[in-house]
């Protein structure tokens, strides 16, 4: 009798469990996808519209995927983002899809926080990696594995003070100009205008050995970051070239004020800065007393007109429970032409998609912001600069190694030493640090 009752009770429990399980499964539960992003521009220029693109993407995504909601925390500043994200990480509250800062990418991938996108890319037949600019796509790789996709990219361009060149009777160089052209112009414009015996007009500001090295095809480190190439001919040539230019300034330091006052002909500038200061309202705040434009970097004897390209990356958490949805959303953000076109409208960077950046539509968007008569950087040129651009190496000791190299090289430039042997010594020092 007792056993019978126990059987009935057990049956009831099992039935209740099955019923509640079925009810739970069939209920329309909302899936929430967390998105980690920061407010403001990645390129350190003012950007009031940072949410607009994301909001638009979220609206599109939620419309395509009923029952899915995307949530993001607003108000995390770019400077606080890394800390905010790290805290989330420590507490296992990592967002499913998130922006990755260039300074975090190496650390996070080596910790295994970012999902390996390889299998997802392989499975997804609609995904085409050749749609991205090579430099942008490769910057999402670490150790040969794709951990992030590029969202927005910014190449470095050369700012040209057209007013100054016109005054000196010099034509704005074309996009295939070289170090020799730059040196010639620098020699021409560097002089004492007001006759006080001190130079007050200069060729370049902020144009350093690194920019020169990039445009001379120099690689500074090997893939794994265990070996540097500062003694390499290409790098040495770049340093020598900078030394040559600095010689023109007779030991004087060119400052931002000189530049703002329109007394400097060239300055490296990111594409984001270019776009910010070319458009209202910032164009009246800066560089307003002269005409200016951007061109490519001058090519060294062994290199091309290329420069460093910075890319804002987005990745998926390795612990996400919504792998497929996260992948769909990441894809929407990084390779949907509509969303990527919005980057030109709402942000200051360039799209990472070849088709978008090179399109007529984008040129029209860029033209909208410009003054009449301003030359707009062509989509084709922009595409070339991005496609061929150098990307910052990803390894743990990169920043320390670079600051070590920077201080040594600037000391070397000031001291007028023999560049070749000093660069060899520097290479040994950096190698010793890297191999520690």
């Amino acid at each position: 009798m007792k056993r019978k009752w126990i059987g009935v009770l057990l049956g009831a429990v099992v039935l209740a469990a099955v019923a509640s399980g079925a009810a739970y499964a069939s209920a329309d539960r909302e899936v929430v996808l967390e998105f980690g992003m920061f407010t403001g521009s990645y390129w350190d220029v003012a950007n009031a519209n940072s949410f607009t693109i994301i909001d638009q993407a979220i609206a599109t995504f939620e419309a395509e995927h009923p029952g899915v909601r995307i949530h993001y925390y607003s108000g995390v500043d770019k400077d606080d983002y890394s800390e905010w994200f790290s805290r989330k990480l420590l507490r296992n509250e990592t967002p499913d899809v998130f922006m990755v800062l260039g300074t975090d990418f190496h650390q996070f991938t080596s910790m295994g926080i970012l999902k390996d996108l390889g299998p997802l890319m392989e499975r997804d037949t609609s995904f085409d990696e050749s749609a991205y600019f090579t430099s942008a796509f490769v910057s999402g790789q670490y150790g040969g594995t794709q951990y992030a996709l590029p969202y927005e990219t910014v190449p470095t361009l050369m700012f040209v003070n057209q007013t100054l060149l016109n005054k000196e009777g010099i034509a704005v160089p074309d996009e295939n100009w070289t170090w020799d052209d730059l040196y010639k112009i620098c020699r021409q414009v560097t002089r004492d205008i007001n006759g006080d015996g001190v130079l007050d007009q200069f060729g370049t500001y902020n144009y350093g050995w690194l920019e020169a090295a990039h445009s001379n095809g120099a690689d500074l480190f090997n893939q794994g970051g265990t070996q540097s190439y500062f003694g390499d001919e290409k790098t040495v040539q770049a340093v020598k070239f900078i030394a040559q230019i600095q010689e023109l300034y007779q030991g004087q330091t060119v400052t931002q004020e000189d530049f703002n006052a329109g007394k400097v002909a060239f300055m490296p500038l990111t594409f984001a800065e270019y776009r910010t200061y070319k458009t209202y309202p910032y164009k009246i705040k800066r560089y307003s007393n002269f005409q200016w434009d951007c061109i490519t970097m001058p090519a060294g004897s062994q290199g091309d007109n290329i420069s460093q390209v910075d890319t804002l990356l987005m990745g998926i958490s390795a612990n996400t429970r919504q792998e497929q949805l996260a992948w769909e959303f990441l894809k929407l953000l990084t390779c949907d032409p509509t969303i990527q076109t919005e980057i030109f409208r709402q942000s200051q960077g360039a799209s990472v998609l070849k088709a978008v950046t090179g399109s007529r539509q984008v040129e029209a968007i860029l033209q909208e912001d410009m003054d009449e008569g301003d030359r707009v950087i062509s989509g084709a040129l922009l595409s070339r600069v991005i496609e061929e651009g150098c990307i910052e190496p990803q390894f743990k000791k990169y920043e320390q190694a670079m600051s070590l190299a920077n201080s040594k090289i600037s000391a070397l430039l000031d001291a007028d030493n023999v560049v070749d042997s000093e660069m060899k010594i520097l290479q040994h020092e950096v190698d010793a640090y890297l191999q520690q």
Partner: protein
Amino acid sequence: MRSTNGNESNKRRIWMLQGAILALNCAAVFAICFFVYCTTQRICAQYNARTFLDTVVTIPADPKADLLFCMVLLGILAATFVARILWLEHHQGPWTAVTLAIDVVVCALLIYWLDFNYNGLVLLVFANVVANVRDGKVKLLVAALAICGYLLADYNLLSIYLPLYRVSDYIQYYTADAQQYLFSIYNVLNSLNIVLFVAYCICVIDWQRGTIEKVNQLYEELQSANQQLLQYADMSERMAQTRERNRLAREIHDTLGHTLTGIATGLDACLALVEVSPEQTKKQLELLSKVSREGIKDVRRSVNELRPDALDRLNLRQAIQEMVQAMSQISDVQIHFQTDQERLQFDADEENAIYRVIQEGITNAVRHGHAKEIWITLSRREQEVLLVIHDNGVGAAEIKNGFGTRHMKERIEMLQGTVTFDGSDGFTVTARIPIRWSETYD
């Protein structure tokens, strides 16, 4: 009694040490999880997360979940331990092995979950298995596995291949002073575990050595007892023989001696009388005849008294069957007894001889022939009884006039029978005994 007590206390000490190792390991695991969890909270509260991340290889996915999960696993370890002490000690069987297997799995999970930051759990598993596994080979295998596990589950080795978080990274988050304390605690926990384990091993070795010594001692005692028993058996046999001889001597003296003396005296009288009075002599001789018959009666009574017990109680068939059964039971020999006679009833001396010959035959077959099967047939051939005892033992190429065969021969010949032995195929005893089928002396 004293050694049992010693063993008990030793066993209790082993349990206690095992408990101590378990408690220490639980404390260490809990301490690590709790420390990582608290430090994570602290880092977040102090807004040092990004700086901290730069100093680590990787971080545990979810310190809070880890803490809960590890506590559940520790609970399982404690439960299996308690189960072994309270319940399974009296229920040897597969369940002990099951709890040990659970321990192994749980410890492996814990070590993995802690990213190999604490491998002292291997020692815990090893300690449990050493105490509970009897089989030497299994023990050796487990020992080898444990050593491999202890060496392989080492953080420094594995971190080359796997991204593993490091407790020392979390310790290094604190100020130098605090670091010193924390590192000491961490090291003390590790060392204490090893110290406890060594103490435990010594205890187990001690205990097992005690057991071995006890077994050896018992074996020696058994040996000497055996020796003594043999001596007793020998002595009692000889005593029985002596007693029997004395009885026989007395019997012979009392009956046969008495009768023969009477007959001799009577015959002397006859010799003296035969010429004087033949009538008288005839009377005397009749008397002597009567006396000698009386003597025969006496002799038969004496012989009767020498009959085996079984024959006293039972008839011959039953007695033989009882003997056959008893022999089969005490040795692993199959004995088949067959007879064509419904009624096996002979005179006592005949029954006695048959019984003894069978007994002797079985004894010989087992002792000398190492036979596994013995066939005994008893049949009537006219006025004779034919007794054949055949076995499948080693036989004998040459029949030696040994004690066993001589006895048989004597017994049979006393009844004017014949006996032959054949050792070519097993061993066969064939005895023919003329029987006084209906004749009686009475």
